[in-house]
């Protein structure tokens, strides 16, 4: 008789403990989520946000010589007020004809190093691992898997304009 009372008491105590353990675990989870989730969202936000594309003026059409490829600078797509000089992106701009311009990204499609335009050889060359591209951006030699990326360029009211866009990561197209 007394034994059964004992065991029912123990099991009540057991239930209580089990409940308290579960309660503590669940509450800890709630606390953890409450503390971390806003921060995680904050840190991950740039991964999912897309910057609006904007057209930037590079200069008067006449300041570019037909047939010449020159390096130009413009503000990049995800610009922050405090970025300073790091808000800039470079591009290679060629005036093909009176009206036609092409802009190549300076980022090598291999691992992103800055490619150099070698006028005499009509080649873009990468200092990092020997990537070489022809003047139309096609791969001529070395490890790059793809031709140089291009930016949109247009002529408006006598000015050459370029459209900001993200740095062309080799795999950007997948997004």
């Amino acid at each position, binding site marked *: 008789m007394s034994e059964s009372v004992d065991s029912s008491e123990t099991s009540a105590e057991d239930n209580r403990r089990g409940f308290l353990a579960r309660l503590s675990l669940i509450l800890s989870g709630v606390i953890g989520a409450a503390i971390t989730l806003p921060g995680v969202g904050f840190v991950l936000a*740039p991964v999912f946000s897309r910057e609006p594309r904007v057209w930037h003026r590079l200069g008067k059409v006449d300041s570019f010589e037909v047939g010449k490829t020159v390096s130009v600078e413009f503000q990049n797509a995800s610009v922050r007020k405090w970025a300073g000089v790091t808000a800039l992106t*470079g591009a290679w701009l060629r005036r093909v004809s009176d009206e036609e311009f092409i802009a190549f990204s300076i980022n090598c499609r291999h691992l992103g190093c800055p490619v150099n335009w070698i006028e005499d050889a009509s080649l873009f060359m990468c200092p990092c691992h020997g990537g070489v591209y022809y003047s139309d951006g096609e791969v001529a030699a070395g490890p790059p898997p793809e031709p140089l990326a291009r930016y949109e360029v247009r002529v408006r009211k006598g000015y050459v304009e370029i459209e900001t866009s993200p740095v062309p990561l080799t795999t950007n197209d997948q997004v």
Partner: protein
Amino acid sequence: MMIAEIWKWIDDRSGFSDVVKPMLEHIVPSDARWWYVFGSATLCAFIVQVLSGIALAMVYVPGGDAAYESLKYITNDATFGYMVRGMHYYGATAMVMLAVIHMTQVFLHASYKFPREMNWMSGVVLLFVVLGMAFTGQLLRWDANGVWSVMVAGEMAGRVPFIGAYIAHFILGGETVGGSTLSRFFAIHVFILPGLIFAGIGLHMWLILRHGISEMPKVDQPVEPQTYKENYEARLEKTGVPFWPVAMWRDVLFSALMVGVILLCSLFLGPPTLGPSPDPAYIHANPMPDWYFWWYFAILSMLPPELETYIILGMPVLGFVALFVVPLLSNRGHRAPSKRPWAIGTVVFGATAFVVLTIYGYRKPWSPDFTVKPLPAELVNSNDPHIQKGAELVHQKGCLYCHNIEGYGGFRGPELTYIGDRLDRGELTIRITNGGYNMPSFAASLSAEEMEQIVDFLLTRTEPKPEVAK
């Protein structure tokens, strides 16, 4: 009297004599001699990093616009700034080197075997975190090189299938290198990774106390998990010595030497020079990682493109897994290097590969050399203006960026010093016109006349015939 009282109070409340002293005085094998100083020296280098790092952080501004200027201020104007930056740099070098040496020693002596498997595994994690510190630290320099390194890191991450671009944007803090990127790296470098290192070191040291320092391996003492602990305790009882101060003096002496070397280097060699400002539009940057990553740089340059993505992504992961599972593959048996030829082989192979690749990485023969000088007249050695023009074109058209002629030019492509002996006119013309494996075609950028001048010049590049004695 007063001091003794105070100490007694501190000691009683803190438990120094009860808890800390026994830890310091725990018994270690007496044969733990100079072989064993690298771990403690790594720890000491970490302390150098923490202290010099905190000092730097008091002035450094982790913002895309100001970081470069603040570093210039630290290097050129701040009192001792030059030295503190130098210490942080050489301390990092020391920490990476010592961690690797420590690990090599543990591996050679198979100290990772029972019961110290977890010691090794926590060490492997620590090593990778330390490499992460080295990498993120290099970016905090935020000169042109730093900016381009982030770019490269982003590109590498971008290669991950499906989610690559997301990871890249996470690393860059946006779609491209800019204002947010540096702040991210700063947070990772000063909060996240150091936190991991502190935790990792804590675990690592706790495990050392729990399992004791391993003895020097002896041929007649293979590890038997059933009996190891008992035997180890028994041997310690007989021959062990207290860590403090009998064994520890060597660690302290070696660490003192190391700190001395760090100080001397930072005084006389100074911190690495800051490159040009971090303008991502600056195209003349030649991104190059710190020397301990040159080997990886070399590998990246030599890979065939089809394999590249797999190796870029796979190698760090594979390397980590391979190291991490070492004690799981074998945690018993012989520890003596003489009984483990494969272990010696692995170390020799690894070290050789590292040295060879590092030299390659430094000489970067795969990169076009944009700085080549025109060929001097005595090398061209011709009065024919046609040939002279050809020699000029070889420089102008960039041939020399990749090809070498008697010491002038890059090493990316085959040497052309005696090319006239190997190829005839037709073959040369075809090569230059069509290009070939790793050589661009010059069909569009050379006129027929220029082509002829270049080919004629190249045909003069022949090995001088030995004078035949009459």
